[in-house]
C-alpha cells in the first residue's frame, strides 16, 4: 500500500528539498520503491539537489497535461535503483498545474511506488496546497527560529483543514522534523530547544537534524546527504527519521556538537 508523504514548512529555506532528498534516499536504501516529486513549479531545485539536473526531459506539468507519459518523465537515480525523481516544470505559469491533473498523476504514482514524497514549495498558496492535497502523512520541516515556528503552525492548520484526508474527516498524520539544530546554542539559551518547539507546535517529533557542513557539501555534490556521507550526524539523523516513518521505534538522539570540547575550552566565543 503506497504512502503519500508531503514535506512542507510554510517558510522557505528551512530545508524542505534537502530533507525530501535525504529521506527519499534513506527509504529507497531500505529496498522500498520511492519517488520524490518536485511541486515547486517555476523554481525547481530537487533535480539539482539529487544531481539529476542534466537528465530532465519531461516534467510534472507535461505529464498532467498529457504531453508525456509518466514513465517518460520519471528519472531513475543512478546510485539507487529504487529511487526516482519526478521533476517540476520551469514554466512561469503556476496555473498550469491543475487539481485534476495532480490527482491523476498521484493515482498513477500510488500504483507504482511504495512511497510518494512530495516536496512542497514555500508559502501557503496554490502550489503548497496542491502538494499537500493527497498526502497521508506530513513532515513539517522547522528551524528553531521564531518565523519558521510561526509558519509551521499555519501549515499544520492547513494540513488539518485543506487536505483530502481532512475533508474526509480523517486525522492527518503529522511529524516534526527539526532542522539546523545546534545543541550547544540551545543549551546556552541562544536558540529554541527541541522541547520548546514541541510544546508550541504539539506534533510528534520525527527527528532532529543538526546544523552541519555535510548538508551543504551534499547539495554541492548533488547527492542526498544520506548517500554522500552515511556516517555523518545529519545522515544518521535522516536515516533514523526514515526508519521511524517505516514504523520502527528508534531512540531519539539529540545530536551532539562535535566541537563540544573546543567549545568548552574556548567558551562562548567558539560558538
Amino acid at each position, binding site marked *: 500500500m503506497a504512502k503519500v508523504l508531503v514535506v512542507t514548512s510554510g517558510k522557505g529555506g528551512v530545508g524542505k528539498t534537502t530533507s525530501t532528498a535525504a529521506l527519499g534516499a534513506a527509504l529507497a536504501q531500505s529496498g522500498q520503491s520511492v519517488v520524490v516529486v518536485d511541486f515547486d513549479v517555476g523554481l525547481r531545485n530537487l533535480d539539482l539537489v539529487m544531481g539529476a539536473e542534466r537528465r530532465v526531459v519531461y516534467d510534472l506539468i507535461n505529464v498532467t497535461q498529457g504531453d508525456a507519459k509518466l514513465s517518460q518523465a520519471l528519472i531513475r537515480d543512478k546510485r539507487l535503483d529504487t529511487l526516482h525523481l519526478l521533476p517540476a516544470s520551469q514554466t512561469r505559469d503556476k496555473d498550469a498545474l491543475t487539481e485534476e491533473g495532480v490527482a491523476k498523476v498521484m493515482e498513477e504514482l500510488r500504483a507504482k511506488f511504495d512511497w510518494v514524497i512530495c516536496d512542497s514549495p514555500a508559502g501557503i498558496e496554490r502550489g503548497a496546497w496542491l502538494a499537500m492535497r493527497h498526502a497521508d502523512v506530513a513532515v513539517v520541516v522547522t528551524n528553531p*527560529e*521564531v518565523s519558521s*515556528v*510561526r509558519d509551521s*503552525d*499555519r501549515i499544520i*492548520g492547513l494540513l488539518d483543514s485543506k487536505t483530502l484526508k481532512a475533508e474526509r474527516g480523517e486525522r492527518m498524520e503529522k511529524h516534526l522534523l527539526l532542522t539546523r539544530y545546534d545543541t550547544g546554542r*540551545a543549551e*546556552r*539559551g*541562544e*536558540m*529554541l*530547544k527541541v522541547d*520548546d518547539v514541541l510544546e*508550541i507546535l504539539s506534533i510528534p517529533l520525527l527527528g532532529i537534524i543538526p546544523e552541519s557542513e555535510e548538508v551543504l557539501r551534499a547539495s554541492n555534490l548533488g547527492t542526498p546527504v544520506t548517500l554522500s556521507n552515511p556516517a555523518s550526524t545529519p545522515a544518521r539523523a535522516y536515516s533514523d527519521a526514515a526508519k521511524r516513518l517505516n514504523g520502527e521505534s528508534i531512540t531519539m538522539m539529540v545530536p551532539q556538537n562535535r566541537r563540544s570540547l573546543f567549545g568548552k575550552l574556548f567558551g*562562548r566565543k567558539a560558538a
Partner: protein
Amino acid sequence: MSILSFFNRRTSAPVARDRLQILLAHERAMVGQNDLVGVLREEILAVIAKHVQVEPEHVRVKMERGDAISTLEVEVDIPAQAKVRIALSA
C-alpha cells in the same frame, strides 16, 4: 550592569518561546473565529431556507470581538416575493 547585560543577551531563547506562545494563541483564535463565522453562516442559511427562499449571498454574518463584549451581526435580505413556507412546514 555590563555583566548582567552580557548574560541577558545570551538567553534570548526564552524570550522567543514566550513571544511565540502569545502570538500563536492569538493567531489560532483568529483562525478558529473565521471558521466559526463560516459555520454559523451556513447553519443560519439552512434554518432560514427551511421557511423562506433566500439566496446564499443574501445572508451576511459578521462577528466583532471587543475586550468587554463581542457582537454577532446577522443580516438577511428577504425578497418581497419570496415564498414563505411556514404554513407548509407547520
